[in-house]
């Protein structure tokens, strides 16, 4: 399939809402005169957020005009990054990471769960328009691999079971707390602390700590 996925049915026009227009102007003002084109990425993001999580071509026109740059240059940026959607996506946009750390930690099971529960393959949107699946490269949270990103939020430590629960909750319109699905605190070890275990039994170390706190050693 072609890598450039642009919706066939396009809205006739697009305009930033007054609030977003003000935001856009604030973003453009960050860049020096003559470098307005640098604002293309935040503006594309703004357009996507305003327009049901996808960017119509009419918005490309609006942005290119606003930044005084050729339309093709805006489209180049929009097609370069997977984070910009150029066709409608579901209410919940699932981005499953399958890069090596996530894959080693079982991202195949996450993908399988999505396929089983929603019948979605990569790039597909469910018939009810609720879910779209995109397989993505590293999301940068490997300590809690595998990661499943739902819209803007990371759900971590995913496996078949907890992904199924998450999808069920989303279907019902609930938004489960973001972060680890296995219940651990951020990226602490799953089975509790694993290092410095002897610390609580070491009288000398504790008394030295107390001296530091009291400022008796000169250290801070």
């Amino acid at each position, binding site marked *: 399939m072609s*890598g*450039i996925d642009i919706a066939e049915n396009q809205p006739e026009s697009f305009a930033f809402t007054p609030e977003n227009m003000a935001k856009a102007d604030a973003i453009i003002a960050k860049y020096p005169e003559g470098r307005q084109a640098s604002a293309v990425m935040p503006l594309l993001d703004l357009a996507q957020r305003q327009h049901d999580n996808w960017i119509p071509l009419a918005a490309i026109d609006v942005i290119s005009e606003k930044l005084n740059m*050729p339309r*093709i*240059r805006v489209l180049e940026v929009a097609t*370069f990054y997977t984070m910009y959607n150029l066709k409608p996506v579901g209410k919940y946009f699932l981005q499953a990471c399958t890069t090596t750390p996530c894959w080693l930690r079982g991202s195949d099971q996450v993908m399988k769960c999505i396929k089983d529960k929603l019948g979605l393959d990569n790039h597909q949107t469910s018939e009810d328009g609720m879910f779209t699946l995109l397989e993505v490269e590293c999301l940068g949270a490997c300590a809690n691999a595998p990661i499943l990103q739902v819209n803007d939020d990371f759900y971590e430590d995913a496996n078949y079971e907890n992904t199924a629960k998450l999808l069920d909750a989303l279907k019902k319109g609930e938004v489960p707390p973001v972060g680890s699905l296995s219940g651990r605190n951020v990226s602490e070890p799953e089975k509790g602390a694993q290092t410095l275990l002897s610390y609580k039994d070491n009288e000398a170390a504790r008394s030295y700590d107390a001296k530091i706190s009291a400022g008796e050693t000169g250290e801070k």
Partner: protein
Amino acid sequence: MPKLTINGVEVEVPAGASVLQACEEAGAEVPRFCYHERLSIAGNCRMCLVEMERSPKPVASCAMPAGDGMVIRTDSELVKKAREGVMEFLLINHPLDCPICDQGGECDLQDQAMAFGHHSSRYDENKRAVEDKYMGPLVNTIMTRCIHCTRCVRFSTEVAGVTDMGLLGRGENAEITTYLEKALDSELSANVIDLCPVGALTSKPYAFVARPWELRKTETIDVMDAVGSNIRVDARGSEVLRVLPRLHEEVNEEWISDKTRYACDGLKRQRLDRPYLRKDGKLQPVSWDDAFAAIAAKMKGLKGAEIAAIAGDTVDVESMFALKGLMTALGSPNLDCRQDGAKLDATTRAGYLFNSTIAGIEEADAILIVGANPRWDAAVLNARIRKRWLEGGLKVGLIGAPVDLTYKYDHLGAGAQTLTEVADGKNAFASVLKDAKKPMIILGMGALTREDGAAVLATARKIAESTGMLVPASKDEEGNEVPAWNGFSVLHTAASRVGGLDLGFLPGKGGADVAGMLEGASKGAIKAVYLLGADEIDTQRLGDAFVIYQGHHGDRGAHRADVILPGAAYTEKDGLYVNTEGRVQMGLRASFPPGEAREDWAIVRALSAHLGDALPYDSLEQLRAALRKSNEIFTEIDIAPEAAWGPFGAEGAMSETGFGTTVENFYMTDPISRASQTMAECTEVFVLPKQDKTGTEG
């Protein structure tokens, strides 16, 4: 000036040069795909990798600035392996369809795969396939072959000035396309075909026509505009199959316009291949002798003043010279080579030349364009102005109809009033010109083909003189010669115009110009008119005059003619042409004229014998000797000589009407391009939609 050692050879290159350029200087060949001398550096094909001392990896030489003391090797085992590796990657997704690819035989990828590649591929997965894109009637696309060098994107953005092309997606999904697959709307668009190092962008009209090794290649000169682009005509048998640009730094660099490239299919249609004579109101084929006899019978008894001759826009200097000789022998003062009625003045050569020269545009720092649309009048020259503009520090002002010139300009006004303001120093742009070191004025035909053309010419001359456009040669502080600068530049649209003016193919004493001839013919004062390839006149106004048409296409002139003498088109004869700079260039014959058609000077020479007074030359060489004797301009080929300044133009009142443009449709300006199917398609795609649009918008 950094010094480098390349394969043991020490070279010194100018500061800012790349390692690749230094390698070329040292005579070391470096293969490349994305790098091109006239485009910005992309550094994305990686084919130009070389070994650099103290660098842990091979470096891309096109993007690496040459530094002092660098030690480069292009012949080491590392470089060989690097090239093989890059080539293997490039070929992973490139189809093995060379046998059915139009680029075959002149393909950079094919050649470099042979010279630098690995003998086989280790890749046995499926290759990727990419959908072909629509890019207009000229550029054929087979995008699966694309290696993403982005030369086409850079060319269209930088040189052509149309930002419609781009590279969408990334990595394996990257694709070259125009925005929403619109046709590439530039007069220079087909140059991307030459730039494409593979067969992804090929010529649509030339698709599957011939292989490069079958073609006879002739280096000649283009006549579609007054730039005189250097071209190579590829022919097979008697058929001209394609036209390609030839490198000439001072004229067209290595670009040509789409009309220059693609009007050649018009050479096959609507051709006059035998003499015709109007009998009983109908043109009927006759022999050469009968045609000449009919002319001789008609001319007998006519006074010189009753005969007139008009030379067309694409004729060579020799045939105009011969026709002038014939008319002089007949005693006629009615000669003109200015079909469009341009009020050009031949008294001073500098008064009708593009004195700054085309290459000189790159030195200019302020340009006033008057009554011209350089984008259509001379597309390649316009690219030169854009090149200068991109460098920065150039101010452009335009007086005339506002059009998209691919660079920014100040629209100063529409017509003569603004021009007078600039001349009087009342317009702000006058001080821009005065402050500039090398200001220039480009005077187009839109300003001169008017009743008050001579007054416009005089006003432009005044601007040139009052704003310091005429800088004499001098010496700088170090004693180096600083060449003279003359910024007064007339932009012609007809390839034959400057040659005609140099020859003096102009009304003699008491003679009529084109307007006078038409007036005389419609009133019966002029009884015979000789049209030498002249089709851009109002033939309705020729009245009852006996019209002799000598030319190569059945166009307007031939339709009105009483006798048709079939001549040769520019690819079918040896001939001299003088471009808008005053540069004499020699065109060579690429194929023979069809049927009984003959070279034009020979026709005039043969006719002169029938009229009783044979012209004193029997060969082209003898004619050229006489030509050189008559005007020493023609002694030197391919030189744009400095012309001395002098008086020209005539003071007078100017009308308030705005300056128009003379080229109404870039793709159809002469009989050849009007007969061309490709140009008709281009007109439909590029010109007509815009005209409709302006029509409804009022």
